[in-house]
């Protein structure tokens, strides 16, 4: 009985703080959505809490703008992020399986090496990377944004931990006895077992690649190959004052919304996945 009262007070405090924090997180997106549905003239008059009726008009304006090909940008971003997610998860699983299921001389060296570069920032090699892809003739193309995702140490580590917890090696042995080839074992038996891990990491790789700005901004030059973040950056660099501000809000919204939709649909798995990736059991 005695402890009931402070707990009630604490509960009120906790809920208040949570509501305030949630408000902070959502407020800016609310402004974004409201302003994206109003016209430029309305926006000049000041802020209104209620949405306007210009959603479609603004959307059409963004779609028809040749200087900022937003939808082409989304398509490019989709290609890059989709391919990165697929390559990254497949090859990380393959590497994890290779190091988990087989015994070979350099196994320990290879594992230690990957663990040592686990959190190495990509920015430190950016200069050499830029020169390399220029020499390889891949400057200003989407390929250098996709191919390097084959080697993602963090995803590898996640896959490796997952294999440790869910793939009994006896299963592999059994498949071998049944005459299954090594690649077939991986594709037909190991990959299906890893499906949950692959799904989680595919989402994170996709989102990471979708939001990536540093490398694409260095690599991509021509307008029709730009991904969404570069277009946003160009928007910032443009002569801002002469702009239709409603269109700016709509562009930002178009850039953000695909991820929000994915997130709302998969939030359960995403939130569960955050901890799986980072925390060592």
């Amino acid at each position, binding site marked *: 009985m005695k402890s009931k009262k402070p707990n009630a007070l*604490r509960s009120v405090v906790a809920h208040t703080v949570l509501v305030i924090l949630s408000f902070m997180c959502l407020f800016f997106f609310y402004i974004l959505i409201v302003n994206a549905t109003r016209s430029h003239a309305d926006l000049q008059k000041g802020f209104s809490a209620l949405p306007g009726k210009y959603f479609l008009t603004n959307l059409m304006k963004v779609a028809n703008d040749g200087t900022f090909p937003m939808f082409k940008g989304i398509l490019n971003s989709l290609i890059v992020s989709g391919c990165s997610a697929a390559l990254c998860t497949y090859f990380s699983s393959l590497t994890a399986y290779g190091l988990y299921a087989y015994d070979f001389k350099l196994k320990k060296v290879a594992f230690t090496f990957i663990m040592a*570069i686990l959190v190495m920032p990509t920015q430190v090699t950016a200069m050499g990377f830029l020169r390399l892809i220029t020499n390889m003739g891949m400057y200003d193309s989407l390929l250098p944004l996709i191919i*390097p995702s084959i080697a993602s140490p963090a995803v590898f580590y996640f896959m490796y931990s997952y294999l440790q917890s869910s793939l009994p090696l006896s299963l592999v042995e059994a498949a071998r006895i049944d005459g299954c080839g090594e690649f077939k074992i991986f594709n037909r038996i190991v990959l299906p077992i890893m499906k949950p891990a692959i799904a989680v990491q595919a989402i994170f790789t996709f989102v990471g690649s979708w939001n990536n700005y540093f490398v694409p901004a260095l690599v991509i030059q021509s307008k029709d190959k730009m991904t969404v973040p570069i277009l946003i950056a160009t928007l910032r660099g443009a002569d801002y004052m002469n702009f239709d501000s409603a269109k700016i809000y709509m562009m*930002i919204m178009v850039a953000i919304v695909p991820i929000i939709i994915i997130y709302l649909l998969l939030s359960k798995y995403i*939130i569960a996945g955050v901890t799986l990736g980072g925390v060592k059991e």
Partner: protein
Amino acid sequence: MRKKSKSISYAKWGYVFILPFFLCYFIFSLIPLLDTVRYSFFEYYRSGIKEVGPTFIGLQNYASLLQSDMLKYGANTLILWVIGFIPQILIALLLAVWFTDVRLKIRGQQFFKVVIYLPNLIMASAFAMLFFTIFSTNGPVNSILMSMGIIKERIDFLGSVLGTRSLIGFMNFLMWFGNTTIMLMAAIMGISMDVFEAAEIDGCTGFKRFYYIILPLIRPILAYTLITAIIGGLQMFDVPQILTNGQGTPDRTSMTLIMFLNSHLKSKNYGMAGALSVYLFIVSAILCFIVYRMTNDNDPDGSKAAAKRREKEERRRRK
């Protein structure tokens, strides 16, 4: 005997399976790294359309970087990171404790978790652009504050050092506190219920429970969060770059190290970019090594720390 020969025949598959990863890493990360280091010793830049160098100049790039504003940008990066990280870790700890407190019975936990994690997935550049428009002198935030009568004149948030830095820190806080909360929650939930029950019987509740039970037990994950956050802070780029259009305005007080690197790369100043990259590489390598020690399975630190904790607990129990 037969078994041994079999395992050798399988070994080659191990190499085959890890080959793509290593091939890709060597080509797209290791060779660029070596190239970066090599050019850091050369005078090699472009002025106008004329290319100067490459001429070997030893450590001159490193020396001139130290005399340039690099250290100032390093300090900027640190300040921006601290402004975002301190509230982030405090709020995350608080929320994690609340979420895991069975007695508190937070309603709509799933909803709150979904909401606070949301900003982490938002494109940082778009988020920065959004803040730029919202906090501009004739943007909605100024209009709202004006109409509520809180301010008389429009505030130029991005024109002042404090305004710009706080905005960047605030955005970093918003983008990362949800993530940290969820990480710390998992850490707290990893603590055995027995410990909490035993503590409660001994009259250890509320703040004591947090300070004497939770904090020491999640220390390894706190340390991990700290180090990864430092690495993330070192890479700070998208938000200040977009918010200040790459200028680090006002007066380059919000210019970060990676923005500095980016401007060298954009102007094709390869020698300087190389030397700066090497500096960054050395710092990251140290941080990487710490993370390696923490995550490695044969980690002597983790087990030692655990043993020490157990010992301490034992001693406390005996008392």
